[in-house]
């Protein structure tokens, strides 16, 4: 079997699983459906590993599978680019996906849409793999939109819930705003480079850098990169297109882990890294990127502090971490962004799947105010989530420390305008990150067992049909093996994947996949300072970020363990800032009013005023009535009275005669 067959099998195996579970789910049954999809993803994980070893041996592949379309000199082909960047994404995607598939067996055990769910997550895996393995913009866009589609279907998986179908429409439309920019970026590249193949476009990068867009007068590369980045802002939920991600928590928890934390939302980060040869040519674009990343990183972390829904805390934490990755991109530290993408995929998947495990134990209760003291009932979930939280807060030796610390360093070294602001945001967010991560842990697993206080009729919006049936007070218990084993397997890389830092960041790992301009020296300077994993940890504990994270954790301990009634007091004292955070800076309200309401208002105005009044009323029916009116006038003449006709005849004859006479007179005189 040639390598090309393997490349093809990687995305096609999950696709086959999705088709089987989707169309023949009834015949296959529940077990059959999860078996075929898990088999598909396993095949693609194992093959990804084989391909990884091949790439490690120095084999890079760039080739077409088939010609999709050809028009106007533009040849668009479906094909694969297999290089270190791709293969790392393939490993992350297939591994997390596999874990989530297994976990789903437990999480969705009693859901009537079991087969449908497996079909969707396998379809997602296929789409995501198409996205990362692409060697051209068209297929990238295909994967980009396909993951968006599956995300839409999965957020709205429980399609009878009003909140879920509101959230999925919102997610799709906000993403479409990003895609609008993305498509314009692709269009600019196609128009000026005459190709949408990565290698061909990158080969022309120096010519492109010199071009000014003919109509707008913008520098082409800057315009194209900012347009492409707008796409990334949609998919990777960057301010101000972040609004869809928190709402996407309406979907079942396994997909929150897979799609809305580990893989799909990082597509934007991956895309910008893939485009590094282009972004490196425009400091303006990079500056835009770093500022957007910085805003997202700090301001979304702040919201996480006031959330009480366990999943939403993790969601805002995801936004903040995506902000970190985006900052790294802006600082030309693409490899660091990808490195953080990888570590984040593991520890955030742990946090989400852990949260899911808690949610099962709590009978689909997600409000942390009704939890507390769970650690003795769910030791495995507790331990793994603690690992996740430590990694998320960026404490050594956990994975998040290495990647996050490197990002902060890279931003520190960056000379791009806006880097100073970004550095401040990055540091502040470290403190906030420590605070919300441990608030989550303490609130959920420590302190008083608040779940006993609450009557179980307060299920709220989570009392949907897949509820576990046995309502009423019950002892929380640890989740089954299909849930805990993936948690454990994921927490291993959540601890250890950071130790690869030397190889990934400073060891030529990415080879030619990532290009950095000579004047962006951050990475080179970091490489000089790097003295191994242990050295980095020892140095780490002497620097500001470590102590900021520690003090964040300590603050959480003080507020939620030591003085648990203090948060309420603080909230009362700081009512206004608390409200701003709880209102999430008012974005949802504004978007609903201005964009959704405004579009409807405009539509109604154009329809009633334009179509109905102006076009139909005045022009169409108006001309019809004008015909009627004129014929009405003419009808008056047809009276049927001979003397009137005679009168008109004489009158007409007289008029003609006088006209003739008048012209004759004119000629004579």
């Amino acid at each position, binding site marked *: 079997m040639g390598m090309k067959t393997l490349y093809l099998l990687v995305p096609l195996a999950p696709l086959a699983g999705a088709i089987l579970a989707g169309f023949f789910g009834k015949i296959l049954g529940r077990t059959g459906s999860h078996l075929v999809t898990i088999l598909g993803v396993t095949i693609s994980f194992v093959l990804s590993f084989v391909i990884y070893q091949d790439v490690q041996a120095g084999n890079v592949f760039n080739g077409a599978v088939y010609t999709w379309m050809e028009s106007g000199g*533009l040849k668009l082909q479906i094909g694969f680019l297999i290089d270190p960047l791709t293969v790392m994404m393939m490993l992350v995607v297939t591994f997390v996906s596999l874990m989530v598939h297994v976990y789903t067996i437990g999480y969705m055990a009693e859901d009537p849409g079991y087969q449908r769910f497996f079909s969707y997550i396998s379809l997602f895996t296929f789409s995501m793999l198409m996205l990362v393995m692409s060697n051209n913009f068209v297929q990238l866009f295909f994967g980009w939109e396909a993951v968006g589609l599956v995300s839409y279907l999965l957020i709205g998986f429980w399609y009878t819930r009003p909140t879920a179908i509101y959230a999925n429409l919102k997610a799709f439309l906000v993403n479409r705003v990003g895609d609008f920019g993305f498509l314009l970026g692709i269009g600019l590249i196609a128009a000026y480079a005459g190709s949408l193949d990565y290698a061909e476009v990158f080969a022309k990068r120096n010519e492109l850098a010199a071009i000014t867009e003919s109509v707008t007068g913008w520098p082409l590369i800057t315009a194209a990169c900012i347009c492409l980045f707008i796409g990334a802002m949609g998919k990777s939920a960057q301010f101000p297109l972040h609004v869809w991600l928190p709402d996407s928590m309406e979907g079942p928890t396994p997909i929150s882990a897979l799609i809305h934390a580990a893989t799909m939302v990082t597509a934007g980060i991956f895309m910008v890294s893939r485009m590094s040869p282009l972004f490196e040519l425009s400091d303006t674009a990079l500056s835009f990127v770093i500022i957007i990343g910085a805003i997202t990183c700090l301001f979304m972390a702040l919201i996480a502090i006031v959330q009480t829904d366990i999943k939403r805390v993790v969601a805002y934490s995801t936004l903040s971490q995506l902000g970190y990755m985006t900052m790294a991109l802006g600082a030309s530290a693409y490899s660091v962004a990808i490195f953080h993408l990888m570590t984040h995929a593991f520890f955030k998947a742990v946090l989400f799947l852990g949260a899911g495990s808690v949610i099962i134990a709590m009978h689909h209760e997600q409000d942390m105010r009704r939890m507390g003291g769970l650690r003795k009932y769910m030791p495995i979930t507790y331990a793994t989530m603690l690992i996740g939280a430590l990694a998320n807060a960026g404490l050594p030796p956990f994975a998040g420390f290495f990647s996050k610390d490197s990002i902060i360093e890279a931003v520190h070294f960056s000379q791009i305008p806006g880097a100073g602001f970004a550095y401040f945001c990055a540091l502040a967010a470290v403190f906030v990150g420590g605070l919300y991560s441990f608030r989550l842990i303490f609130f959920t697993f420590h302190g008083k067992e608040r779940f006993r206080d609450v009557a179980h009729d307060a299920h709220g919006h989570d009392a949907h049909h897949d509820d576990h049936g046995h309502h009423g007070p019950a002892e929380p218990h640890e989740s089954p093996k299909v849930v805990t084993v993936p948690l454990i397997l994921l927490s291993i890389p959540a601890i250890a994947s950071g130790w690869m830092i030397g190889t990934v960041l400073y060891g030529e790992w990415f080879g030619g996949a990532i290009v950095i301009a000579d004047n962006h020296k951050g990475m080179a300077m970091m490489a000089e300072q790097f003295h191994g994993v242990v050295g980095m940890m020892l140095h780490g504990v002497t620097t500001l970020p470590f102590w900021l994270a520690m003090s964040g954790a300590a603050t959480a301990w003080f507020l939620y363990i030591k003085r648990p009634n203090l948060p309420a007091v603080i909230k009362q004292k700081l009512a206004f800032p608390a409200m701003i955070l709880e209102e999430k800076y008012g974005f949802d309200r504004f978007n609903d009013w201005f964009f959704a309401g405004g579009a409807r208002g405009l539509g109604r105005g154009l329809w009633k005023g334009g179509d109905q009044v102006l076009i*139909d009323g005045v022009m169409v029916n108006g001309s019809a009535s004008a015909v009627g009116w004129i014929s009405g006038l003419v009808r008056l003449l047809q009276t049927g009275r001979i003397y009137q006709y005679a009168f008109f005849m004489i009158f007409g004859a007289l008029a003609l005669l006088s006209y003739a006479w008048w012209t004759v007179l004119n000629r004579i005189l």
Partner: protein
Amino acid sequence: MNASLLSLAIWVPILGAVPVFWIGSERRELVRWFSLAVAVAGFLVTIPLYIGFDTSLSGMQFVEKAPWITRFNVEYLLGVDGISMPFILLNSFITVLVVLAGWEVIEEKQAQYMGAFLIMSGLMNGIFSALDGVLFYVFFEASLIPMYIIIGAWGGPNRVYAAFKFFLYTLLGSLLMLVALIWLFLESGGSFNILDWHHLPIGIKPQILIFIAFLVSFAVKVPMWPVHTWLPDAHVEAPTGGSVVLAAIALKLGAYGFVRFSLPIVPDAAHQLAPMMIALSLIAVVYIGFVALVQTDMKKLIAYSSISHMGFVTLGFFIFNQIGVEGALVQMISHGFISAAMFLCVGVMYDRMHSRQIADYGGVANTMPKFAALFVFFAMANSGLPATSGFVGEFMVILGAIKFNFWVGFAAATTLILGAAYTLWMIKRVVFGEVGNDKVAKLKDIGSREFLVLGLLAVCVLAMGLYPFPFTEVMHSSVDNLLKHVAMSKL
């Protein structure tokens, strides 16, 4: 045999309609099966057109020529190129689906119903293959009659108003075209051959007048803003089959007119008036997108969505680059599949609930899961999701537009947001949610015949989205030739 393929495509359905009328509506089973047989035969005779088509040639193929009215040099002249050939297949294919869709639903005068569609199918094949001005005009006008009857006889409560509006709008438009055709006949020294007209030198003033005469006629058909208001009314009142043919084929006639008449016969006027055409197209895309958003009637919503999508077609033609023109043609074919499917989906629900109002639905997915899956799929195609045919045309036209002028591309690309907004908002209210009311609770999922019709369209939509290469391949030479021709001034 090869020599008369086009005649077969035209006359098999038309002559096949005669026995359908003769069988009569009382013998329901027989009339259905016979109509289906005629429709399928009509489709089969068009397949050799695709197989035998030589993609390397830019000129007309399968040409048939016979004298008709020798006094005025009018000929029975048929032929297709890479631009028109796909539409003959599309039309004949859609006719099969329309016959299947009217299988049980049409209870009154089924023979006449089926016969009208078969005749219309043949007439429209005639429009796409006629190369003689008078022949074209006769087919063009004749095709109004069956559609008028279909809306007027099998339509909804307000069908008479809608049928009249449709008829008068389009008839008034085409009268100006007749004037232009006669002028061209006189100017060319007595020829009605459209291809002769392509090479006829014409001054700029007459060019502009002719362009406007054609424009009025074709713009009504497309329809372009602001002469579009007949379409929502016609769709709302038309029976499902009528809507399908109207959206999938009849709208394409206007667009086809632009490429067969306006662009090659009066290229200088086309260039001079292109800014206006682009502006009108963009208004269609954006303005109509907003209007579609607030519709409460599903058929109206899809009708407005059609106008918006057809805006891409006219936009693609008037940016004069290959990817734009081919994108417009691809969009025409794709829109044929998708709009047909969307109207059929609404028809499926209408047959059960007798309502097209969005507010009367809600949670259809609970009771009709198979149907819901297909409806969501077509909705996604309508929003231009990649891997569906809806993406290909829009993508090509947007690429072409950005190449032409960034801001034109910018305005066109707003469809990404608007199209998704109006389509998926409808889906949210109709398909998802709790079961809306008792009537929805009693809905039965689609049967095998409905599944077959929608399934066939789904396969087409997906296939064209995944592999559009064969479609553009067919067009290359002809479009290339057209653009070269249009670039040469006639002054």
